[in-house]
């Protein structure tokens, strides 16, 4: 008789018992009524048991490791606050990257929390449900740790005080907001393709790795720590994205064209959104890690290349916009920074003209484009500023109806000409920044015709504080809009060189680094 007793179950058995074995088929109600959303997108699933979670993390192990991560993080945050860590950053310009993060990225974590809770509820397969449940909790943790970390900066600097209020109102924040609401209002399979695959797998390295290495380069220990803590969950999220794609493609050949169309759409949506990150890397970090173009080469051209080479066996090709995005890598960050420099009165963070050595860096990183197209404009603005004419654009820009970014991108192959596209729908004209955004609209016009475009809303009178009378003589729309945004004029906005942040930082840092 074999008396060998296995002391402990292996990982694969543990996973099977503690995830798959916890699911059941409903009997009081038919399964398709309990899980109405996992069929209506047209994705055909024949066998949910084929879903693999490669990490095989069970709920008990999940809580153990997440608890460990939190303990490490909060110890660092406390030390950071107790030791005036905010004075250790390279210079106060860096803080504007933090502002952009809390205003535009942290609210997305919360949206992701909601989205994965919803997707987790609506998949009928247990493996997918458990993975979504963990991710939903991860995302809530990310939102909370980011708010806790950045609250320390908010005690000392401007522009972070009303990030949640601003997220639903401020013009450029409608870019991340509309991106995620687009994903949240899709079905569960499209949601996973958009967020887990296109964003997390293909593009997240462009968001977190440069942001966090940027924080490390610039002395921001608190952000590095929450960033790495969040990023440790990200590998699991990326794996979920890749698994979901593989699963859909293997389940039925009819799924291939649906998945391909989602990849095309969400690659372009994510790429447009990351313009803000690229701008941060090239312009806002006093100490640069790598240029946007370099990050694009490593994380998209090389790593993404390996991925799409592998997916080719299912009949998947690289996303449609990839070649365009790759050609644009030498341009978009300069175009975006130019626009934010223009609109420095209307945005709750500061902008500036790069210093001389920074211009040299830009011209070395962008040898074919920076000196030719972008340096002259920056130098002109610098001269104007020195002469007392700092340029603040007071008109409102036209927005792309899909990505909601002002029309600042140029024609493919001609960086001197702004790119305009348009479509007609139900008797109205809709405008786009690119072929990519136009195609997304044309595929689902009923969805995008409903876009809440900040500029349109301002013109329609929907962005003034309650009780405002725009017909009153001498009415000034800009201050009323900024008031509605929750911005303090003169503190949260305008050029960095005249900012309270700059003055305070210099005043506080002096005594902290000398014996006075």
């Amino acid at each position: 008789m074999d008396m060998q007793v296995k002391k402990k179950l292996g990982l694969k058995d543990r996973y099977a018992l503690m995830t798959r074995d916890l699911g059941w088929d409903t009997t009081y109600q038919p399964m398709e009524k309990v899980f109405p959303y996992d069929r209506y997108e047209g994705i055909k699933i024949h066998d949910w048991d084929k879903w693999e979670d490669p990490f095989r993390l069970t709920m008990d192990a999940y809580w153990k490791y997440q608890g460990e991560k939190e303990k490490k993080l909060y110890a660092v945050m406390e030390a950071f606050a107790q030791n005036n860590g905010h004075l250790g950053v390279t210079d106060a310009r860096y803080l504007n990257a933090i502002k952009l993060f809390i205003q535009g990225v942290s609210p997305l974590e919360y949206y992701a929390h909601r989205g994965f809770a919803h997707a987790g509820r609506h998949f009928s397969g247990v493996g997918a449900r458990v993975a979504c449940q963990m991710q939903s909790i991860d995302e809530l943790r990310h939102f909370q740790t980011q708010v806790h970390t950045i609250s320390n900066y908010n005690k000392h600097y401007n522009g972070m005080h009303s990030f949640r209020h601003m997220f639903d109102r401020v013009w450029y924040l409608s870019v991340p907001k509309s991106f995620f609401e687009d994903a949240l209002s899709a079905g569960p399979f499209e949601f996973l393709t958009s967020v887990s695959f296109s964003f997390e797998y293909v593009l997240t390295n462009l968001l977190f790795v440069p942001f966090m290495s940027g924080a490390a380069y610039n002395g921001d220990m608190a952000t590095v720590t929450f960033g790495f803590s969040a990023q440790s969950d990200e590998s699991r999220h990326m794996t979920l994205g890749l698994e979901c794609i593989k699963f859909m493609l293997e389940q039925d050949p009819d799924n291939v064209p649906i998945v391909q169309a989602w990849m095309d759409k969400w690659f372009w949506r994510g790429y447009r959104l990351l313009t803000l990150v690229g701008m941060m890397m090239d312009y806002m970090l006093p100490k640069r890690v790598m240029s946007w173009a370099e990050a694009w080469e490593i994380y998209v051209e090389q790593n993404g290349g390996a991925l799409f080479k592998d997916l080719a066996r299912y009949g998947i090709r690289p996303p449609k916009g990839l070649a365009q995005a790759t050609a644009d890598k030498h341009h978009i960050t300069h175009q975006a920074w130019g626009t934010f420099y223009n609109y420095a009165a209307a945005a709750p963070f500061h902008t500036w003209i790069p210093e001389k050595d920074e211009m040299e860096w830009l011209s070395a990183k962008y040898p074919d484009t920076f000196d030719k197209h972008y340096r002259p404009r920056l130098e002109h603005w610098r001269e104007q500023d020195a002469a007392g004419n700092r340029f603040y654009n007071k008109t409102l820009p036209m927005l792309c109806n899909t990505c909601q970014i002002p029309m600042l991108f140029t024609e493919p192959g001609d960086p001197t000409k702004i790119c305009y596209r348009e479509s007609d729908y139900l008797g109205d004209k809709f405008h786009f920044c690119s072929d990519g955004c136009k195609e997304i609209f044309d595929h689902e016009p009923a969805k995008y015709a409903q876009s809440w475009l900040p500029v349109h809303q301002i013109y329609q009178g929907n962005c003034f504080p309650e009780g405002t009378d725009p017909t009153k003589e001498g009415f000034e729309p800009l201050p009323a809009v900024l008031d509605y945004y929750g911005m303090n004029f003169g503190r949260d906005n305008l050029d960095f060189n005249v900012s309270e942040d700059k003055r305070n930082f210099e005043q506080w840092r002096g005594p902290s680094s000398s014996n006075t």
Partner: protein
Amino acid sequence: MSNVFIALQNNEETRPIIEAILADNPGSARSDAPGMVRVDAADRLVIRRETIEAQTGQPFDLQYLHVNLISLTGYIDEDDDQLTLSWSH
């Protein structure tokens, strides 16, 4: 053949892990960024529990990797003894 990589936080907990990866994957290459170490390998990268344990002289649970993990590519195959990244099926 495509590259796979794993990126870990650079700290005392990951030092033996990174050494084990480099030892178990001849030809793999380490690169350092602030706070982060990345190891690239051609086509396949394996992380073995025993090698890590030999480095530290203590038992190691491979799932503890989650605490310090930053990013990775490729398909994962994991059990109690090793974690493999590769593009093969």
